[in-house]
């Protein structure tokens, strides 16, 4: 890869690179959510409080994490 294309990739003008970044961000956000929800439950937070924090419904949080925790 030449220096020119490296710079282009970092700036996000290459769709492939940009999409890869989106995917990585989504994965990172999912992992952080898993860790935070787990910790909040451990500290005694209710599903409703966690849902409010995430800005989603209680049902959505419970569906996603309820079985695991």
């Amino acid at each position, binding site marked *: 890869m030449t220096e020119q294309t490296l710079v282009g*990739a*970092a700036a*996000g003008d290459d769709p492939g*690179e940009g999409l*890869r*970044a989106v*995917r*990585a*961000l989504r*994965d*990172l956000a*999912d*992992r*952080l959510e*898993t*860790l935070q929800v787990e*910790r909040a439950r451990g500290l005694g937070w209710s599903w409703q409080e966690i849902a409010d924090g995430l800005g989603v419904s209680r049902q959505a949080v419970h569906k996603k994490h309820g079985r*695991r925790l």
Partner: protein
Amino acid sequence: MFERFTKEARAAVVEAQQVARGTRSATIDTRHLLASLSSTAGPAADALRAAGLDPAEVGARARRAVTEGEPLDAGALAAVGVDLDEVRRRTDEVFGAGALDRAGARTTRRGKHVPFTDDAKKALELSLREAVRLKDKGIDGRHLLLGILRADCPGGRVLQAALHDAGTDVAALRTAAERSARTAA
């Protein structure tokens, strides 16, 4: 063929699905199988230990081999200004060492069937052949391990590297697996 699998071997195959979901892999190959085998207590883990390996370390290696260059992509994150090392440092601090990687493994995509690759199928077939060769009735974790060693596959290469780093080789692990398979029979 699956009816000849022991409970433990069957559990390892099922668990390989979970490993693949955790790593968001589109297919299950022998690395996923190796990761689940080495994290399940049983004959396979015993054979690894007998050959001088730490099963947990082998499992971690197999997972790493799968996730390298996959979704949690440090390079792609850096391109949008996210420093994964820094994120990792902070999550280690709050949630314990390795939390970010563990969280990835726990995020399961429920209900989605993950297919086996051809080399994983081949390794399963070879494990049957190993059981026949050793005149064992059931196929257990050791036979799966021998199947992975016999097949030319990514899981086998992870094992090779682990054995090499431990100062031993494939022959030693094969002997350990065969010996314990015999004594159990």
